[in-house]
């Protein structure tokens, strides 16, 4: 096996052009499988020394996070304060040791339906930048473990637009234990209320469909109306309806569906205006 550590995007793309070569970031997904239930690839291309893939920059209402930035570094950045849901997702992500290695690019490219950063990135309508194009985070994963990235295409950074000032957002992760666990259900929501009316609602659901999904019907139920208990329970049920969970080793499909409704109902309930 050939291991390389390119310093530029161009070199990396060339190294990845070799058939079967795989990009390596933190390795917390990749190295768990290689040599165990998957064979070692002919080439391993370490992406961590490419400068464009590092750093967190804020500009023109957009924050840009290098794809190979370790999650713990993102958590420590002041920029995260504008994205409480993402902060919450990062805090509930694995444990400190894994967060020191794992990257945002890896979490996106790995395309797990349970990936914890996806629901918060999706409620902010974040976009990934590759060498060639911009891809909405929501469009990146096409099936469990599969993305629309082409061979040799590298996620360079992720852009997250700053939410409206009065936006309220949340992230909840339900897992078999409080740390070092893959979600049974993870979900994120963002709402903006103005003059007693919801003007913007976004809800993203993880672990309950082949890819992380937006619950558009639920969002539509909320938008344009006052946030009431009734509206919230309708929206929560609609979100549960949008999911297509499966039974697996962690939980049953039925439990997952119920949890979407119940957790959303509880979380959204916090934002009912005091009358």
């Amino acid at each position, binding site marked *: 096996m050939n291991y390389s550590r390119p310093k530029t995007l161009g070199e990396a793309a060339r190294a990845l052009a070799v058939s079967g070569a795989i990009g390596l970031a933190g390795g917390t997904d990749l190295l768990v499988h290689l040599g165990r239930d998957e064979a070692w690839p002919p080439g391993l291309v370490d992406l961590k020394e490419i400068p464009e893939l590092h750093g967190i920059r804020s500009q023109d209402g957009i924050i840009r996070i290098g794809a190979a930035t370790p999650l713990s570094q993102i958590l420590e950045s002041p920029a995260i304060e504008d994205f409480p849901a993402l902060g919450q997702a990062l805090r509930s992500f694995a*444990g400190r040791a894994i967060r020191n290695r794992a990257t945002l690019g890896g979490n996106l490219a790995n395309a797990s339906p349970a990936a914890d950063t996806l629901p918060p990135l999706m409620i902010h309508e974040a976009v990934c930048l590759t060498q060639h194009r911009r891809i909405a985070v929501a469009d990146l994963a096409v099936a469990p473990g599969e993305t629309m990235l082409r061979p040799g295409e590298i996620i360079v950074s992720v852009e997250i637009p700053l939410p409206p000032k009065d936006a309220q957002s949340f992230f909840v992760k*339900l897992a*078999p*234990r*409080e*740390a*070092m*666990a*893959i979600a049974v259900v993870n979900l994120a929501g963002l709402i903006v209320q103005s003059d007693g009316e919801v003007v913007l609602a976004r809800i993203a659901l993880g672990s309950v469909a082949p890819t992380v999904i937006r619950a558009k019907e639920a969002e539509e139920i909320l938008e344009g109306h006052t946030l009431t208990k009734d509206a919230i*329970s309708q929206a*929560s*049920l609609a979100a*549960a309806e949008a999911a297509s969970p499966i039974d697996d*080793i*962690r*939980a*049953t499909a039925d*439990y997952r569906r*119920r*949890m979407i*409704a*119940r*957790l959303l*109902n*509880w979380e959204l309930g916090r934002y009912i205006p005091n009358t």
Partner: protein
Amino acid sequence: MNRKSKPQTVGRRHIREDAEAKLKGRLRFLPDLRLDDMLHAAQLSSPLPHARILSLDLEAARALPGVVAVLGPEDIPGENRIGVIIDDQPLLAQGKVRYVGEPMAMVAAESAEAARAAVAAIGFELEELPAIFDLDQVEAQANEPIHEEGPIAVHQKLRKGSVERGFADADVVVEAELVTGLQEHYYLEPQGCIATPGESGGLVIHGSLQCPFYVQRDVSRATGLPQSRVRVIQTPTGGAFGGKEDIPSEFCARAAVLALATGRPVRLLLSRDEDFLSTSKRHPFRIRGRLGATKDGRFTAMEVYQDAEAGAYATLSPPVIYRACIQGAGPYDIPNVKVETRAWYTNQVPNGAFRGFGSPQACFGHERLVDLMAAELGMDPVEIRRINLLREGGETCTGHKLDESVGALETLERAAEASAKGAAEEEAHFEDGRWLFGTGHAAMIYGNCLGKAGWHMDGAGAYLQLHADGSVSCATGLTEFGQGARTVVQQMAAEALGIEPDQVSLMPVDTALVPDSGPTVASRNVVMSGNAILNAAAKLHERLAPLREELGDVSFRKLAGAAYKRNVNLAAEGWWHVPELDFDLKKGRGEAYFAYSFATQSARVAVDRITGNVRVLKVWAAHDVGCAVNPAGVEAQVEGGVAQGLGWALTERFAREGGNILARNLSTYHLPTAIEVPEIETIIVEEPHSQGPFGAKSLGEPVIIPTAAAIAAAVSEAVGAQVSEIPIRPEHVLELLERGGHDSNAL
């Protein structure tokens, strides 16, 4: 015996003698050991749960590069049998396979890769047979029995008084059907051993193990070598919890056969996945029980039926079943008791020894019944236990009258008092309206050492060599695998001689150096080693007595020096065995064990009404240990046991599908992390036993026994309905919330 009236060392907090080497990573475990010319072993495992073996073709594998030996059942020089008690298990499957993962053939090769390649090249044909996967199906075994002898591996009964009469005398009778789940030991170090041909035609075995003398016997049996030619050296052992009681014997025996066949050292090391998929677990239990009581809460009768899943072979089901049965009705003085315990064969990995030997399951059974009764009578769960717990002069459920060392009531009072304060500080952080809180209690009885059923191997020895400078070398045959046992043994030896612990050196456990002291199980190390040491020390004191008289008040060092110069025999051998027990095994009547430990644990939990998740906020663990030889060690044992019990109660959901185990490592088998394990307050109760060294009784297993039952009680109190199964799944909690009228009413 010349013992100071007030112990100097026993009872003081001691740092573990192995702590520094472990913390600094200096201890060398089995995988760190590499012998010259060492071969690597691998095993062919059955892919089917139940099948006839039609053919096994080893030739293609033998022809591969780097392969030195490929052996099938016919190639075993001795007997193709293993098993401590019931002779139903082959070393390599012959005729039939009975579980997924059962070894059928084995390979020794120059590298682990070559060994794996050879295993893949072994040809075989299997004819699949109908299989039995769990307790729901066991009665159906008549069609295609797993073993000719019938579906039941072990059956134990206990009878006291007449339950018919007892229930007739009762004002209230409650009944329950309860279920407990499987549990994986998850010792940090997977199974591993190295067998090396010795100079004189014998074998040296190094292994991560609990019971070197079991290994010696099974290696001897498989190889045909006399036991004296098999030397077993325990390597520092990274956890065991019962999982390295009998299991290492089979790996060591296979490695031994390969070593003899090749004339080279052979290492057999399991990966975490292999270990998880193919080694023993805690028996799952189905329990049906009835409890009768008078209006004022006095128990009149308890009747318990326990069905346990043995898996494909009996292995250690007999002691698990014995203990579960004897302790099946708990630490209560009940005039009429009936317990009936059976272990059933299934086509699963054999279930075996696991901390508690059936006691945590039994405890879940009797404690759930007691809580049900308290609820039915509208009585405080502490009060109902107070009324019925054993006291001095009382009779256990086997009719054993207890004249001493019954700390049951004190553990209850202390745990109840401490837990009454709750965990208010924590609870302040929980969101209003979402969480329900509850406290639960569970009491247990634990028969010390092996009891009547294992009495024939319940003896232990110790060698003490007093040196001319007053220091001592001490050899005992029981092992350390993380319990902190060596530190306690060192303390007891020091105390017995009146010297400081740092003057005592413990020999490594090597069958060539230490006396056969039976298995290191049943929480017997302190009691057995301690008594054997006291016996040896008494001999030394006796030999030193004339000199002591002559020299007057001199230091022990001077005394030893003088004795040395006079050719006094300074090497003493000690022995102790459990006193004879008057017990009827058929009826389960009489003195089941020579002494009993008692405990009560209380747990405080928060239950999430939205998700059904349970968080344990605090556990108070009051244990009657007779004498806390090392209080720091007691705390460490309690904390470890409670954490393990918490996992069994809540997070460790063991997933199987047919004969396949689905969870196989920490990503899918959820051990509790430091976040799930709450503050644990250890409360030490000391009701000394006259036969225990310094009064000490067993502790290693009691620490896990009541935890799950206490958590289940706490959850039941919180949700207003009784938990009937563990692990307590969130789905089950949601049902209970609904039943208790505490559902969040939210969708």
